[in-house]
Every structure is written in C-alpha cells, then in structure tokens.
C-alpha cells in the first residue's frame, strides 16, 4: 500500500473536485445523473477516508503521516505539503462523513430555487476546501483551501437562503475575508521572519518561535487570532454567524456548524499555538476571557430567541467557547477536549440543524411560539430532538460531555506559561479558575435554553393552526442521513477513548512547549 500512503490525501482532496467537474459537464435537466454522481463522489471520498483510517498508524499519532511534500511555487518556496496527525484525523473523517449525509438529506429537500446541479457542485467544492484545510501543511496551501471554503458557502446562502439572504451572505463573506486578510499578513510576516524563508507549517513549528521577538510574536498572533477567531466564531466577532445560519439552507447550516467553524479552532491548534508559542502565552488569558464571555453571552442570547434555528446558531457561540477555553489553557487536557469538542459539536449541532430544517420543511415556520407538540405530531422526530438537546447540553454519556468537562477541568490548572502580560503565575491560575466556574455556570444556562426550546417545540400539544395539519414523521432519507450522527453521539459518549487515544499524543506534543 505504498502508493496509497503517498496518494491518499491528494486523492481525498481532489476527488470531490473531479466529481464537481463531472457534474458541471452534465446538463442541468438530468437531475438523477447529477445526484448519483454527487453522492458517489462523496462516498468515494469517504471510502478513501476509511482507507486512511485502516492504514493510519495509531501508535504514532503525534507524527505526521501520509505526507506528500513536493515543490509547488519555487519562487516563494511554497510547497505542496500535505499530512495528517492525530488532531487532523478525526476532523478529516468528520468532514468526509458529514458531506455524503448532507447530500443524502438534500436528495428530497432541495431548497428553492430548485437547481440541484449548482447546489451539489457547490457542496463538493466546499468539501475540497474543508478537506484541504485539514491536511495542508503549508501556509499558502492552507490559506488557499481556507478561502476556497468561502465561495461556495457564500453562494449557498446568497442564492438558496432565506428572505434576508443578501445581507447575511455579504456579511459572512466580508467578515471572514477581513479576518483572513490579517491572517495572511501574519503568514507573510512569518515567511520573512523565520530563520529559513519558508511557509512550511511543520518546519515553522519546529522552530518554536525562535528568531521572532516576543513583541512581534504578539503582533503576529493577533493577526492569526483575528483570522481564526472570526471563523470559530469567538465573541465579539460572532455576529455573522446567527445571520448566516438563520438564512442559510439546511444543508448549508449543517456544514457551516459541523465543519466550517472547526477550521478556525483547528487553525489555532495547528498553526497559531505551535508556531508562535510566546504569542500564545501572552494572548491565552484574553482568549480564555473571550471564551467564557462567549459561553455566557451566547447562552443568554439563546434565551432571547424566538426562531429555533437562530437559537441553535447562538448555541454554537457558547459551545465553541468551551472549545476555545480548552485551547486557551495551553494544556494537553485542554487541547484534547478541544478536538473532542469539535467533533462532538459537529455531530450534535449538525443534527440540530438538520432537525430545524426538517421542522421548517413540515411546519413552514421556525417560530417557537407557533410550534409545539412535536412529540404528538411526529413522535420519532420529537424523541430525536430531545436526544439531541440532551446531547447538546453536555449530558454525560453522550458525546457533548467529553468536549465540555475536560475543557472546564483544564481551566483549573492552565499552563504556567499562559500568563498573559501579568507575568505572574498565581494570578494566571486564579484567572483561569474563575473562568472555570463561569464556564460551569454556562452549562446550567445551556440546559436552560435547550430544554426551554424542547419544551416549546417538542412538548405540549400542537397549536390550533397545525392541529389538522399532517406532519410527516421522520422519513427514509432523513433516517439514512441522521442515523450515523446519532450513533456517533452515543458511541463517542460511551467510549470517549475512541477519540482521545488518537488525539492524545498529538495534543501532548503540541502543548509540550507550554509545559515548562
């Protein structure tokens, strides 16, 4: 399987692109053929992912595997360098699983205006960008994939979105682009300032910031921070998210929540922390602060929502706050929790957006005051909604808990070096311990908004306007699309080591620089 080691990641990245090209060649009228090609492409990509899983050396997760390192743009020394370790792997597989499920779900839920060809082509293009970002080990390559993601999502929201789609899509695009611009500045500066002019992430990480003064690191980290934090999104750069989610078509929301947000947190772990360790130390308490503010603030905003989908969108702000809190502690506990949290949030919030979409499809509204009695009208869907609400509020035994609890735990004892500008380990310690308690309080608010949502949507009896409406319970494409996610939530909840054992060594190697 030597050839597979060399080609697996390249295949994984570009198979969707080939599929997209084929779709573009098929006339728009031939919908069936388009659907088949799209589904097959995503399944082939998934099969490559399974191959990667089989071939991955789980005893050596800290090491970059399946590496390809070829000359690409010699004049700026940008290389075609791909590779994955224990941190990229779960996210890569998550992406590969989510995309076919989204395509299956779309098969009979195509949003208006009806244009499967463009829609599916865009999903596949999106997959190229997402997979590419998780496997790229060269800053230029990373940046390109990171930006490739923007375009299809922009069109998905702008063309297939809700009534306010124009505003939402432009906001999404510009906000993210603004962050990427500053991120690019930092990338360029890293190229010029590093010992050897290089964009290679592994090489830069191996320098551990040597040769860049502390002050410059702080500046460059700020650039990276803006790029990634907007994507996560962290308070106060989150306002594009609720609008984008509210307007996006269901599948767009699912992909946005399940994968796109993780590009930001992944960037922190893969690029910002290892390459600029001193910058990270200075910024860590501030990131922690924004994280816990996000946890509480996101939860409070959730409580004020009337639109179910907007509520779920705000809940992402809160949940990603836990992920970022874990990262901000600069500990192995925190980073492990962060990666687990990313996967769990992908599964759970992805599911919640699917449900919001299906509910809207049936009731033609997402106003929670008009909904109610889903358990009566469509019992199975009501149960699934309850299950996902419980998973989302971090119920132990389900996946969400393992992103949340270790993150809170890690804040009790952050890295001694995560001391910001205080330079005082003791105050760092107590700062983070305060964060820990605040984050723990966030879990109560999370239970509050999710259960209130469930009470209003799931419990009670149907409102008079829907009393006679025929509400279809979960139908087959939905079962197919949802079962893997639901199983994932349970299985990872019961056997968390399925993920922790993969991320652990890689996380330790990343946080080693901060353990002094």
């Amino acid at each position, binding site marked *: 399987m030597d050839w597979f080691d060399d080609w697996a990641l390249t295949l994984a990245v570009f198979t969707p692109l080939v599929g997209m090209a084929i779709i573009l060649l098929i006339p728009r009228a031939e919908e069936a053929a388009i659907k088949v090609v799209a589904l097959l492409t995503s399944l082939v990509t998934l099969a490559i992912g399974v191959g990667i899983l089989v071939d991955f050396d789980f005893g050596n997760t800290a090491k970059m595997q399946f590496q390809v390192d070829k000359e690409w743009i010699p004049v700026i020394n940008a290389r075609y360098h791909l590779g994955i370790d224990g941190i990229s792997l779960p996210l890569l597989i998550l992406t590969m699983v989510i995309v076919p499920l989204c395509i299956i779900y779309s098969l009979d839920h195509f949003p208006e205006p009806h244009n499967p060809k463009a829609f599916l082509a865009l999903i596949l293009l999106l997959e190229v960008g997402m997979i590419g970002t998780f496997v790229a080990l060269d800053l230029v390559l990373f940046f390109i994939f990171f930006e490739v993601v923007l375009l299809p999502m922009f069109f998905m929201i702008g063309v297939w979105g809700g009534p306010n789609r124009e505003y939402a899509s432009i906001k999404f695009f510009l906000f993210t682009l603004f962050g990427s611009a500053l991120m690019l500045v930092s990338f360029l500066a890293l190229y010029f300032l590093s010992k050897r002019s290089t964009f290679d992430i592994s090489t830069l990480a191996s320098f551990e910031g040597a040769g860049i003064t502390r002050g410059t690191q702080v500046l460059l980290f700020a650039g990276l921070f803006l790029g990634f934090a907007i994507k996560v999104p962290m308070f106060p750069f989150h*306002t594009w998210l609720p609008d984008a989610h509210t307007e996006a078509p269901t599948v767009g929301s699912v992909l946005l929540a399940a994968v796109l947000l993780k590009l930001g947190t992944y960037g922190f772990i893969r690029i910002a922390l290892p390459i600029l360790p001193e910058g990270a130390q200075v910024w860590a308490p501030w990131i922690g602060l924004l994280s816990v503010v996000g946890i509480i603030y996101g939860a409070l905003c959730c409580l004020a929502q009337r639109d179910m989908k907007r509520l779920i969108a705000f809940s992402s702000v809160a949940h990603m706050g836990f992920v970022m809190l874990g990262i901000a502690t600069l500990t192995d506990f925190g980073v492990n929790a962060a990666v687990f949290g990313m996967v769990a949030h992908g599964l759970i919030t992805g599911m919640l957006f699917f449900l919001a979409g299906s509910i809207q499809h049936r009731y033609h509204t997402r106003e929670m005051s008009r909904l109610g009695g889903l358990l009566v009208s469509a019992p199975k869907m009501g149960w699934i909604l309850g299950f996902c609400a419980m998973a989302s509020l971090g119920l132990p035994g389900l996946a969400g808990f393992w992103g949340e609890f270790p993150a809170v735990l890690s804040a009790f004892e952050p890295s001694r070096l995560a001391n910001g500008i205080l330079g005082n380990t003791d105050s760092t310690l107590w700062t983070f311990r305060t964060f820990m308690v605040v984050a723990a309080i966030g879990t109560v608010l999370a239970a*509050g908004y999710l259960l209130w949502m469930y009470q209003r949507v799931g419990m009670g009896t149907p409102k008079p306007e829907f009393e006679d409406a025929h509400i279809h319970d979960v139908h087959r494409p939905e079962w197919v699309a949802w079962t893997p996610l639901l199983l994932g939530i349970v299985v990872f909840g019961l056997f968390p080591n399925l993920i922790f054992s993969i991320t652990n060594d890689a996380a330790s190697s990343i946080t080693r620089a901060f353990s002094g």
Partner: protein
Amino acid sequence: MLDNVWIIPLIPAVSYLLILFFGKRMPKKGAEIGIAALGAAFVLACITAMQWIDKVEAAVSKEGGAATGLAALGRSVVAAATGAPEVEPVVRGVTWWENGPAKFEIGARVDGLVVMMLVVVTLISLLVHVYSTAYMHEDRRFTHYYAALSLFSASMLFMVISANLLQLMVGWELVGLCSFMLIGHWWEEKPNSNAALKAFLTTRTGDVGLMTGIIIVFFAAGSFDISVVNEYALSPEVNHGLMMWASVALMFGIMGKSGQFFLHTWLPDAMAGPTPVSALIHAATMVVAGVFLGARVYPVFWEGFSIGGGGLNMMAVVGGVTIIVGAALAFVQNDIKKVLAYSTVSQLGYMVMALGVGAWLGAVFHLFTHAFFKACLFLGAGSISHSATHHSFDMREMGGLRKPMPVTFWTFIVGTVALAGIFPFAGFWSKDEILATADQGDFRIFLVVGLIGAAMTAAYMTRCVYLTFFGQYRGHHHPHESTPAITVPLVILAVLSVVAGLLQSAPFEIKKFQEWFEQVGGLPKEMIIPEFDYGLAAISVSLATIVVGIAAFFVFRREEHGALKGLTQRNRVAHAGYRFLERKYYLDDLYEGVIVAGVKGPIARGSNWVNQYVIDGVVNAVGRGSARAGRWAYDVFDQEVVDGAVNDIGRETALAGGGMSKLQSGRLQRYALFLLASVGLIALAVYIVNVA
C-alpha cells in the same frame, strides 16, 4: 458476583433498549421485560450482598470476633474501627479515556455501602415495576414509561457501583435525565413539563458545584478514583484549603440533588410525575444520590468541614435547617403527595445533618430504612388515588378510607409510625443512631434540631393520616381496595418498615448493619460510633408519641370545637405565618419570578439587544464605512487619477462577477480588492517593524 457487579446495571440498561424497540409488540407492552430485568438484577444484587457478607464475616471470625460483644452500656465513646478488620473493597476497571500519561478508568467497586444500595435500589425498583402494572394500566405511554423506569434503575445502579468520581457524575446526570423524563411523563400539560424542567435545571444548578468539586478533588488528590481520593483526604499531607473548597462545591451538588434547603423547591413540584415514580425518586434513586455522594467520599467532607472538631459546619447546618424547613411546609399542604414530598425533604435533611455531625453510619442507615417506609407511604398514596379518588391527591376529597381500604390503611399506618420514629419501627433505630451521635459528638444543637424535627414529623403525619383515613369520606367516587399488584408491594414494604431497623438494634445486641455495610475501605478513624442511649431513645419516642397524641386530639376535636379552627383567619400573626408557609417561604417567587424570569427576560433580551444593535451596529457601521470609502476611492481617486483603461478592466471583472450571481453588483469584489491591497501594506509594515 463481587468481580462482575457491572452486570447488575447492565441488565436494566439492556431492558431499556428492548422495551423501547420491542416493548409495544409484547403482550404486556414491555412491562414483563422490565419486571424480569429488575427481578434478575435484584437476585444478583442479593447474591452480591451475600458474598460480601460472607467475606466480611470470614474476616471478622479470623480476628476472633473482636468486633462483637463490645456493646457496653452507657455513653462511652468508641472509635469507628472497633477493632474490626478492614475488608478491602473489590475494584475492577478498564481504560475509559486518557490524557497525556494518565489513563482514566471506568469500573465497578463493591464495598459495604455499594451492596446495601444495590439491594435497596433493585428491590424498590422491582416493587415499583410490579405496582405500575396496575397503577399505570391504560396509560397513554405505558411502554415508554417502562422503558424510562428501566433506564432510571440502570443509571442509579451505574452510579452506585462507580469506582471513580467522574463515573459517579455520569450516573448522577443520567439519573437526572431519567427523572426529567418521568416527572414530565405527561408532557402534554404545561405544569408537568414545567415541573420536569424545574427539576432538571435546579439539580443542574447544584451540578455546577458537583463539577467544580470533582475537579478540585481531582487536582488535589491526583485521581478520580474513590479509594485514592479518600485515602488522600485522610492522609497527613492533605491540602485542607482545597478540601474545604471541594466540600463546599460538592455540597451544592448534594443540595441540588438531595433537595436540601435552598435548592429543595423542585422536589414538591416533581410530584407532577406518576406516583410510582415519586416513590422511586424519593426512596431509592435520584434524591438519595446526594446523600450517597456524601457517604461515598466522606473523608473529603470530614477533612474539608473539620467535622471531627465538632461545632457548626455547612453540611450539618444545611441539613438541620432543611429538617425544620421541610417539616414546617408539610403542615400546610392539602395534597397528600406534597406532604410526603416535604417529609422527604425533611428526612433527607436528617441524612445530610447526620453526615455533618459525623454520623456516617446513621446517615446511611437512615437512607436504608427511609427507603422502605417512604416507598410504602408513596405507594399507599398512589393506591388511594388509584382506587378511591380517581387520580386526585387532594386530601380534602379523601377521609374515612380506613374501612374500604384496609390494606392500604394498615400499611400506611406502619409507614407513618416508622417515619415518626416510634419504637420498634425502622425509623426509630436510624433516627436514634443519628441523634445519639449528635449528642456524643459535641453537636448538641443538632440534637435539639433533630428532636424538634421528630416531633414535627409525628404531628404532620398524624394530620395527614387523619385527613385521609378518618372522618367522613368527602370524595365523589366509590372507594375500594386496590388490586394485588398494588397491595402486595405495599405489604412487603410495610413488613420491611418494621424489621429493617432491627439490623442495627443495640439493645438486642445486633449490629449487623454496621458490621456488614460500614466496610467501605477508608472512613475517618476518629469517627464516633455512639452507644445506645436509653434516655435519649425514651425522650425521642415519648416526644413523638405525645405530639401524635396532641395532634390527634386537635384534629379529631377540630370539627366539634374549633379552638384552633380558623385560627389562621382570625389571628394576624398566625395568618402571616400560614401565608409564609403557603408561599413556600417565597423561594419559588424568588427563583421563578426573579432569577429565572430575570435571566430569561431582561438579561437575555438585553444581551440580544447588545448583539443586534451594539456589536452588530459596529459591524454594519464598518461595512457601510468601507463601502463609502470604496465609493470615495472610486469616485475621486480611481475615476479622476487612474487611467481609463484600468477602469475598463475593472468594469469587466465586475460584470463577470455580476453575471455569476445576480445578487451582487460588484461591491464584493471591491471590498475584496480593498482588503487584499491592505494586506500587502500591513505585511510590509510588520516586516519593517521587526527588521528595524
């Protein structure tokens, strides 16, 4: 079985799935699966208990029975380890997750406390399962009900056998989930779903403390493992400050789960669930989880609250206050289930107070006996509503049920007497154990609290029994005795309410409960095991009896004379007191009206407003500003300065872009260009800064 105790929770867990997926197709709609599963679990629990007892007795007899026969009379203070050999708990585990070099296990632990809980939980749950076949007959969601019951038992059992605190927390939360499902079983009606939410959110509020406490303990002791934690807390190198914070934090968890003042308000509302569920929640699962936690990592509290030193501590105070607060509220209820609910609050107060005054054995023993008589009382109340009042629990619609419902009546009386702590019923022995420890361990004030509580208990239960069973029937139905599925569990529980206390009855030279179940591998050595105190026992029993007598006198006489009748209407002070109790100390008004409404209302709306108008306002302003800047650059700079040829290319690009998406007018491209141009400039600036 001692090595494979994990099978016990697994059986109901599997039963849950079976009922959920196949229950509706079974002849009894899934009830038979649940009953079979709990029956099997009960048998296995008994076998486990036997094997544990064998193990303990073998160890004891090897030591030549040093532990027995020490029951000297009087008030001599004897250390916890009365020379009895320590029997090691049986602990097994497998890797659950890992972090860095550390591996965390999930496992099963068997010791005295665990086997006692296993037997109680499986037994009560089994009886509730049987009882429900009649009580929940023709319920709209019969099968789901049974599925949830099974899951409830599985979660509780899983929690009980936890080998480490993290696992305990998982079980703890799952128990909370199940009570949410069951309290809200009839979720069509808003009050029921409100009660379910209230239960979940209140306990979750306490869980902030649980989570924080476990984290503190973890970093202090370096492990989640219960043996390690306990050993650490008793070792000389313990960090007292951390243990104190951990105790305070964990105490919040206990207050939420075990309905301690001031987080007790969810418990009475939880009566919205089906009555058998109330019995289960109050006797064997859910609310005893908090007390169980306290007993499980007792050394942490011992160290954190310096219990060995006597005096006031948070645990004892919270428990003591809860005894009185709960008992007082039980007086003013008209709903029989609410009387019992507040009675549970009060009794849980005894258990927590017991832990707080160093009476570990008393707390655990009271948990044990309370399970039987409280389950008996709840199921009795259910029997009445099922067969006499047509699903009403209002005592104003009852009365005179002594004749038509003899079995229910007599079992209820036994439960009441046991609850009131009258010799020789179960409650007497366990309550006495607590009071005697408080007395001998320099906690006199809590002894007084306990005695007052006992008197109040006797009084409100007399009122309850009178209103329910004596006088004239005030309902509009035809009361009759319930079917055997209901009465048999009642009788079993009544029998246990009589005999369970005898397991630890010093005058009869029986200390089996202590011998078998105090072996938990690591309790504070300085803990006091009190000697039986005849004087104290006589005081508490006669106090309870006198109060019963007085209370009975007044309630029986009320109708004819009315010295007290209408007192609360006539006397302003009495009326205010009554209102104060009726409004439940205004705690619900505070929580729901002020805190929850505040967070949901103004605070949440405020955050949303900030989001929409402040943060988003800035974002939009920046967007609009850039657009204006762009327009300015275009109009002034671009049009007038730059060559027209460049202009043309720009327009072509804009058109191409516009063609792709009719939504756009080229604005986006301009923003993008603008941004990317600035990138180059800033990059240059950073470069210069760093070089210079």
